[in-house]
């Protein structure tokens, strides 16, 4: 990113670049978008420094999933220890991919550089670095494509935006294709629908061929391949975790909920991102699922083998995405369930909605999802046989199957963050809003250019939500944080609801930094708070074991 400490790099501070406190909030966005570097972007090398890159993958993790060129290396060193034929690998990789993806081939050819995408990217808005304009991010790769795969590029070189492949180009790719969260906001505005997510996916595949990857992605991928989830929770550990959650649910509600795991013959397989098993506030959403399923008497099962809805494989290659995703249908088949229900997650739903059936279907051993409570037949999912918990819950509420007391959430003044993938890779906009409005009485929308299909990324999607690139995340989270701050000041919003595990984790930092005082919450957590359960005790505590109606026992103050 352009501003902040320049070449001398790290500034004097008692904090480290992977800590939020290292960055001064006002200084960070002292930006003038009109100021651009003097040199042509092709002559401006990548500035890799602590705080803006992610550590390389550990070799043993790469070897476990059979990825090539596993080795110890550092982005901060001059020598990246690439294989001797690295150029050939990259160019062959491009050739293969333009043959496999029309999107890639067309998007390489048709950009007119109109600039409509430029100020749509959260990283550009929060950082001002021109190479974070989607158009220029794509040119980083296009310039190589032109040079080796187009007539004009071969003949006219730089005049038509072509440049030869060098090590500096690879370094630039590493920096900037891990400063893209594949959120697709730019593709909403592009007159030709050019989708930077497609380009970033291709670039990351190419980098992976050279053994250039980041551990924050590869470790979860390897762990997921082995244990069934990104966090590496083993089957007995997952059982302990879920039983522990059941105890908490009982403590809060007085209702004992069951924990069916790997149960053959259950009607529904439930799959959620593993983030819901580990960290606050996701775990409260997980407790919410358990309370909800108990209350409606859903015959469901958890799976330990398919204990991950998310798919960090998507952030490495299409093949790896398929390898991880395969577990869901395989497990549904083994357990003999009728259909699959998915939890609150963002990129998970991009995979389930736009990729799963194509990659690992057809799921002809399953049945079209039918809600056992309402009888609603989810025809629009008749091929994948998988529906979203928000669709399922919205249908329950619409049919009056839940007894709700929204006043229990009165201490919460809620706004809703549309997660990128459910918004722009699916279009699930109304279902979560309908659910929230039925369980909370204080709901406020953020400004219209920051929600629905125009929603801003949390800044940590696509596998870059780690501490070591904190500067990138804080900058990328700025547009969202700024919109949250707006409704915080205007409406006293204190809860940012999101149906995505990555949002719940990364937006916690974003809010602490840009809109302190606003806390993250999953939607099913809000549902479970408001849900009047059969046989419940007087509900004094919410799932966070805080006083249900706020500290003062009343509404918002």
């Amino acid at each position, binding site marked *: 990113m352009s501003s902040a400490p320049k070449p001398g790099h790290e500034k004097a501070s008692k904090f480290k670049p992977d800590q939020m406190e290292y960055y001064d909030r*006002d200084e960070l966005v002292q930006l003038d*978008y*009109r100021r*651009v570097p003097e040199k042509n*972007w092709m002559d401006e090398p990548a500035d890799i420094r602590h705080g803006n890159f992610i550590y390389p993958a550990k070799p043993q993790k790469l070897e476990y999933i059979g990825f090539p060129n596993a080795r110890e290396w550092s982005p901060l060193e001059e020598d990246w220890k690439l294989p001797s034929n690295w150029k050939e690998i990259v160019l062959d990789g491009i050739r293969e991919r333009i*043959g*496999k*993806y*029309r*999107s*890639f*081939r*067309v*998007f390489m*050819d*048709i950009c007119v550089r*109109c*600039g*409509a995408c430029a*100020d*749509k990217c959260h990283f550009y*808005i929060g950082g001002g670095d*021109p190479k974070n304009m989607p*158009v220029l991010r794509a040119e980083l790769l296009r310039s190589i494509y032109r040079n080796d795969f187009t*007539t004009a590029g071969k003949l006219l070189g730089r*005049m*038509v*935006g072509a440049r030869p492949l060098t090590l500096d180009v690879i370094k630039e790719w590493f920096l900037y294709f891990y400063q893209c969260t594949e959120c697709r906001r730019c593709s909403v*505005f592009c*007159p030709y*629908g050019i*989708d930077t997510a*497609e380009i970033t996916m291709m670039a990351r595949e190419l980098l992976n061929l050279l053994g250039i990857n980041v551990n924050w992605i590869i470790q979860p991928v390897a762990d997921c391949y082995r*244990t069934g989830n990104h966090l590496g929770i*083993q*089957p*007995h550990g997952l059982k302990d975790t879920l039983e522990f959650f059941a105890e908490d649910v009982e403590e809060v509600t007085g209702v004992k909920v069951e924990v069916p795991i*790997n149960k053959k013959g259950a009607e529904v397989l439930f799959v959620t991102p593993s983030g819901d098993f580990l960290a606050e506030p996701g775990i409260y959403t997980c407790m919410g699922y358990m309370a909800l399923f108990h209350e409606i008497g859903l015959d469901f099962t958890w799976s330990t083998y398919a204990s991950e809805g998310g798919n960090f494989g998507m952030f490495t290659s*299409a093949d790896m995405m398929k*390898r991880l995703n*395969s577990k869901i249908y*395989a*497990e549904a088949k083994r357990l003999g369930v009728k259909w699959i229900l998915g939890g609150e997650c963002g990129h998970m739903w991009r995979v389930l909605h*736009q*990729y799963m059936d*194509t*990659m690992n279907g057809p799921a002809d051993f399953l049945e079209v999802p039918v809600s056992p409570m309402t009888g609603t037949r989810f*025809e629009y*999912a*008749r091929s994948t046989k998988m529906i979203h918990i928000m669709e399922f819950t919205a249908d329950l509420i*619409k049919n009056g199957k839940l007894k709700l007391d929204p006043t229990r959430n009165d201490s919460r003044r809620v706004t809703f963050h549309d997660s990128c993938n459910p918004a*722009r*890779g*699916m279009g*699930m906009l109304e*279902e979560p809003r309908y659910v929230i409005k039925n369980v909370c009485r204080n709901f406020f929308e953020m400004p219209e250019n*920051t929600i*629905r*299909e125009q929603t801003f990324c949390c800044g940590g999607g696509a596998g870059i939500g780690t501490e070591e690139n904190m500067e990138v995340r804080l900058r990328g989270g700025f547009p969202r944080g700024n919109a949250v701050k*707006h409704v915080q000041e205007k409406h006293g919003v204190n809860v940012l609801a999101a149906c995505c595990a990555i949002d719940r984790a990364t937006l916690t930092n974003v809010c602490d930094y840009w809109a302190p005082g606003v806390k993250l919450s999953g939607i099913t957590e809000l549902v479970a708070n408001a849900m009047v359960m059969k046989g419940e005790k007087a509900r004094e505590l919410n799932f966070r074991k805080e006083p249900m109606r706020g500290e003062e026992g009343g509404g918002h103050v």
Partner: protein
Amino acid sequence: MGIIVSFLAVVALFLVALVGGGGLGLTWLFGEVVPYAAAALFLVGVVVKVLRWASSPVPFRIPTTCGQQKSLPWIKQAKIENPSTTLGVVIRMALEVLAFRSLFRNTRTELKDGQLSYSSNKWLWAAGLAFHYTFLVILLRHMRFFMEPIPGFVRAITTVDGFLQFPVPEVYVTTLVFLGALGFLLLRRVSSPQLRYISLPNDYFPLFLLLGIGVSGAFLRHVEKVDVTAAKATVMSLLHLAPSPQPLSGVFYGHLFLVSVLLAYFPFSKLMHAAGVFLSPTRNLAANSREVRHVNPWNHPVHVHTYEEYEDEFRERMRDAGLPLEKES
């Protein structure tokens, strides 16, 4: 730098034909060989490019959804912004191609005192639309040079376009809008530092080329008052594959040459967006991937970690935890 090179390139091209076709009388070259070669390059180039795009499959169904999905019956679907049917896709594409729907969404992001704001910004949309439509009308107007008898709709367009009836011959409104829109697009690219930064020489070249075509055309009509009969005879002879270029002015051959360059340049440049937009998978597919299975032709098998392998590794711990097993050992 890029802008100067592009400008000089267009000027040089024009001068070459001005001198060659006019002064030197090389009408066989600028009136026969070049237009034919350019037309051939255009046709073959565009077809080859489109076939090459089409030869790459669309492995995944990846529409960018810009509105509510089709889900529960009581939730209103955005049938065009998030189409689930072919009809919806056709309408979405029509709006995209005919009205530049996505560009219409354009906003300007501003940061002031740490506060972001987004305002509607339709200038690019308006200028882009104005340029493309006036270019289309100008092409249609030129049909009177390409057809005998002149079709009624061409006469009608010409009449409406010349409603100003001033001076003589009357100025077409489209000429003014065409040049104005191009001027705006050029000015926009030059005046914004960010746009200047992302612009390549080949972003300026087509703008100057089109401006050159427009200005030389207006010059032929209003200043030089070109011999329309001779011009038409030249064009008609080309179309009938019996070329007999008339001795016309250098400016005429300059104009014709720039048009030829545009045709030849088209398939090798970003101008191919005109065809590419139809093949863009984020726009031309129905967002019904949970309803109908999308087939990937190269969906090759991959290594997976099977349940059996998983249970083999964790069997003891699963048994101790009381989890059900497929095999006891």
